[in-house]
């Protein structure tokens, strides 16, 4: 069913004014979901101190891929000491991700900090002057509009993908596993509950359990003695009537029995995580950035907790849902189109059912959205959600509210509340609501909310 048909159907069942508006905004959004080429953003209006000689004259900038001198661990250790000395921590772990197609799961960790001083708050000034003012030159009467820029940028531009665009930042590369470790240690997220050991995995631990003759790590004395006796009996070196004279025993090298380090199969519960992201038109800009960033953090963290055993599936949805192969595509796809949450949930349910995933896996579903849904009352969404609750270990829904909407009043939130599922299945379903302007710390807090016991 395409957008138009869906709209007709919804219209037939009655729409509120507000909903009309939301739908109208996304109705004519004919963008596509391709992975964007990074764009450069517009310069700020009044930035006198931005340009510098090296950049302007010689095109010299700090190369973004260069390694930093100090290791992350040292910095974090310093931070720990700070806390012990009674000062607040100062290092924040940046989010930057560069999931390339080839290097799957590559995450760039950027430690950031800020040096606090007493400075004037220039944001205040901007608020007072409407939306800001700055310099300009050229033709145009007073009051004349000289240019426009969409509020919802075409695609997500550089915002989500490449971090700061120009790449004038020093950074340190680490893998997702490292980020997960940092998250676990730094933020002390609670561990996910292990849902029973369902199935053996091809994962090994090494232990001194196997026996080997001739060589090995530890001599198994009892077994060796038994072997020696057996050999000597075979050689008729021992007579049954006389007491055994151990000095006369012959010892062949192969009689020595050792314990040897060996590979053991390990049994561990395994997890499958569905990342579901709303990539409808209304998600443009910060909302998407927030959601993907959070998903990166969760992804990394799960990778750490489940020691690489976490399997991931990526679902994108507008009015229709689509599964994509890798994180790169999931992360970078442009926003466009309308919104129908139910489509995505249905897809997750179908996948689980068809592949009988619930038998073998702990299933986690993380859904990021701005809370818009054409299906205002969740008539289709709620049943799908209920179905989902029957097998999932945890469903975490993050709503990144737009700054132009009313807080806590999005469709998704209101129908979830109305359904009472949040209370009934408190253990399985979590909702986190935040404003799209929030920072990293709030995101971490959000994850904690989503996955706490």
């Amino acid at each position, binding site marked *: 069913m395409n957008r138009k048909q869906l709209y007709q159907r919804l219209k037939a069942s009655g729409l509120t004014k507000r909903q009309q508006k939301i739908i109208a905004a996304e109705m004519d959004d004919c963008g596509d979901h391709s992975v964007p080429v990074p764009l450069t953003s517009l310069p700020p*209006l*009044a930035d006198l101190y931005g340009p510098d*000689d090296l950049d302007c004259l*010689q095109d010299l900038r700090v190369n973004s891929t260069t390694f930093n001198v100090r290791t992350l661990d040292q910095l974090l250790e310093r931070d720990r000491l700070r806390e012990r000395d009674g*000062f607040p921590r100062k290092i924040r772990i940046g989010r930057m991700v560069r999931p390339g197609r080839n290097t799957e799961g590559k995450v760039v960790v950027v430690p950031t900090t800020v040096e606090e001083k007493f400075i*004037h708050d220039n944001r205040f000034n901007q608020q007072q002057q409407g*939306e800001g003012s700055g310099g300009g030159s050229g033709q145009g009467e007073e009051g004349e509009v000289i240019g426009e820029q969409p509020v919802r940028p075409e695609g997500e531009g550089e915002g989500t993908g490449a971090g700061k665009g120009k790449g004038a930042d020093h950074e340190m590369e680490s893998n997702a596993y490292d980020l997960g470790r940092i998250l676990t240690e730094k933020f002390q997220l609670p561990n996910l509950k292990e849902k029973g050991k369902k199935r053996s995995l091809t994962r090994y631990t090494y232990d001194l359990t196997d026996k080997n003759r001739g060589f090995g790590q530890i001599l198994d004395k009892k077994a060796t003695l038994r072997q020696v006796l057996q050999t000597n009996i075979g050689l008729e070196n021992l007579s049954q009537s006389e007491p055994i004279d151990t000095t006369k025993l012959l010892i062949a090298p192969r009689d020595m029995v050792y314990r040897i380090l060996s590979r053991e199969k390990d049994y561990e519960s395994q997890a499958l995580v569905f990342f579901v992201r709303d990539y409808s038109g209304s998600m443009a800009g910060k909302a998407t950035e927030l959601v993907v960033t959070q998903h990166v953090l969760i992804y990394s963290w799960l990778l750490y907790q489940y020691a690489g055993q976490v399997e991931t599936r990526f679902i994108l949805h507008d009015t229709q849902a689509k599964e994509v192969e890798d994180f790169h595509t999931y992360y970078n796809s442009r926003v466009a189109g309308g919104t129908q949450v139910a489509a995505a949930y249905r897809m997750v349910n179908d996948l689980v059912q068809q592949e009988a995933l619930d038998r073998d896996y702990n299933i986690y579903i993380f859904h990021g959205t701005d809370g818009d849904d054409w299906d205002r009352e969740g008539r289709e969404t709620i049943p799908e959600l209920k179905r989902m609750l029957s097998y999932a270990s945890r469903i975490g829904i993050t709503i990144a509210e737009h700054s132009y909407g009313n807080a806590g009043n999005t469709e998704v939130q209101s129908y979830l509340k109305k359904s009472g599922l949040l209370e009934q299945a408190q253990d399985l379903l979590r909702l986190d609501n935040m404003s799209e302007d929030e920072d990293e710390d709030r995101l971490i807090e959000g994850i904690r909310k989503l996955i706490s016991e």
Partner: protein
Amino acid sequence: MELIDQKTKAIMEGCKERARSAGLRFGDETLEYLVTNRDMLELAPKMMIPTLYDYWVHDVEVLREKGKYELYPGNPYETVINTRPAISFYNDNNPDWLNVMIFYHVLAHIDFFQNNLYFRHTWDYDLTGQALADKRLIARLRSEHGRWVDYVIEFARGIDNLVAFHGELSQLHRGETRCSARLDFFFDIFLQQQRIVSTSEYMQQIEAYNQACEEAGDMGEQSFFAGVVRKYPEFEAAFDRYESEKSTQSPDLLQFLIDHSPLLNREENHWMKSVLQIVRTTSIYFQPQIRTKIMNEGWASYWHETLFLQDDRIRGHEIPFARVNAGVTAMPRVGLNPYALGMRLFYFIEKAADRGCYSFAYRRLCNMEQKRHFDQKTGKGREFIFDVRENYSDFTFLNSFVDQDFIDHNQLFVAGKRLDEERMVWQYYVKSRHADDYRQMLFDSLYHPPKIVLDHEKSREGALYLNHIIEGKPLVAEYIANTMLGIEFLWGGPVCLETSEAVVKGESDEKGLAAEITWKRVRYQMKERKLERTFL
């Protein structure tokens, strides 16, 4: 980092000759280094000073969304640094013609550093040498006191934007022949502020002083004060009190802590003072850079353009030059470019001064037509801009010379940005073409640290009381706690900060219905690392 090769150095020397004959003045010696990306990575956080002390924050990506340059007033990524000899940095694959252009740009910067009076305090020593000594001292302290050195650096840097740059500067610009402190006090403070005498009485005293000098020559002052004491018996006591009070005054918060902090004055904490001193001196050293950014870049752009086009050695490279030059000095349709703005202003001033427009004769004209055709053909434009580069800073430069003529001539305007909710687009529009508005917009984007003074009267019971004098903007609230934590540590006792918070009623919209703002005084108190906020 290695030096440029001999051939390139010869080009530089050629540039120096040409620049000198055009009137620029700078030291003979300069050092030019080639830098790689790796070098840049290390230099950038140290404001391009290779020998600056090490500090862990330099290794971390620093969040700069909020208040960028307010926090880092030094000019990172500068091609040339203000040292003796001046050091400049180059990409190793610049073609010769580009190097010529950059050399002129650099030489003009050096000329600016070495002649603009706002840099007066940097003329007497070499920062690279000083910084190296500081770096070694800090390294030694670190080996003795470990991470506590970094805490002290951190806390000192937290208030290093409040240094009394202008205070230091004014010390250097005092005239040679001055009156004695006693005389200054008598006429400036005692008579005008303490006794508050009538004008005629004041004039009588001046008369009496002149007469005493005439009669007694060198002993004049002494005999004058003999008379003063007879008339005002309390004078001597007042003067002594004033002197002793003055000696306890410190120019800024950092210096105050060095002088008077009970914690720093403990025997075992004396080393902290050296750290504070280093942070303070370094900060003051960088202060003029950001306060002359527009002038400095404008001046350098003016000269690289002028001198490049006259240089006979690189004929035939005008087109690539034009491309690069336009990239640097083109006025953006929206946004500000300090290079373009400063350069245009220098050209404009030169032309105007050539016509003699900065004269009374011009100012008293009220007829536009007469103004337009006014031309005294003074030929003093060049001389005038040299004078400007010596005596002005960004604020005085913009305030004095950005006028309606300049705005009209360059078609400048204040650009606004607003949200069109119907179509969900940001609109950029021409907000105003008035010089006053344009100037105000520039002033609003100029660097300006908050004014925070010590309130001695309210500093009671070992507490330090800071007073933020509000200038239309509140402080960044998120930063207050940690900054005060640092001050508390350095002071060794509770610290209070009085500031204002804006209470905004109603919402502002584009139609000019501005929101109503009232300021509410707030006091923050940091005591035992706990912050309390109370409304006054």
